[in-house]
């Protein structure tokens, strides 16, 4: 149960291996890896800014709530910050539970939160210069799926 913000590249498979090891009562490990897309040459570099101390605390708070809501046994979130090249991993989320539905839903929920409401500021550097990116309409509707009426 930890959130890590890191400036260097990370390897999702190594994180999954460590997260899955030694679990004899976990039936299900769901994971999500977000990769930086080249967008057919439209993006050279993605630049992600966080506010260390606030960003990680806020993500951890949401993850603890999700662990409670979905009955997780464990979770792990690693998020790149700084400059990220196409094909590199931006985010890795893993969730562990006894049965698969909880692990899937919690992983999906955490990604919707991370992509739409987590305290990051994202800039895309491409051949036409740099621009700030905001959540897409789909990011907004995705995260709204989880709100209880």
């Amino acid at each position, binding site marked *: 149960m930890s959130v890590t913000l890191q400036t260097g590249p990370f390897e999702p498979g190594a994180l999954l291996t460590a997260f899955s090891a030694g679990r004899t009562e976990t039936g299900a490990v769901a994971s999500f890896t977000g990769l930086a897309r080249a967008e057919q040459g439209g993006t050279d570099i993605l630049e992600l800014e966080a506010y260390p*101390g*606030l960003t990680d605390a806020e993500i951890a708070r949401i993850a603890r709530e999700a662990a409670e809501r979905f009955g997780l046994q464990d979770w792990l979130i690693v998020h790149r910050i700084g400059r990220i090249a196409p094909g590199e991993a931006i985010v890795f989320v893993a969730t562990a539970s006894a049965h698969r539905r909880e692990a899937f839903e919690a992983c999906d929920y955490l990604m919707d939160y*991370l*992509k739409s409401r*987590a305290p*990051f500021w994202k800039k895309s550097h491409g051949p036409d210069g740099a621009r*700030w990116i905001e959540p897409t309409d789909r990011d907004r509707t995705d995260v709204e799926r989880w709100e209880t009426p």
Partner: protein
Amino acid sequence: MARVLLFGRLADIAGWRERVVPGASLTEVRAALSADADLAEALAGKGVQVAVDKVIVRGEAGLTATSEVAFMPPMSGG
């Protein structure tokens, strides 16, 4: 006095990311920053949030000499 941090496009507009600014309250800090009209307009913009010592605050807040004040434009998600 407060250490002011700007995030995202606010730092691009101001041309700086971190600066010590005089003021014993958020109102006084905003006043000190208003010498830069573009920044002042951006700070007053929709969805800009303020954190004091890494906790989001709404409205006014008193500051000490060691306070860290962050102005955060709408978050983009990761």
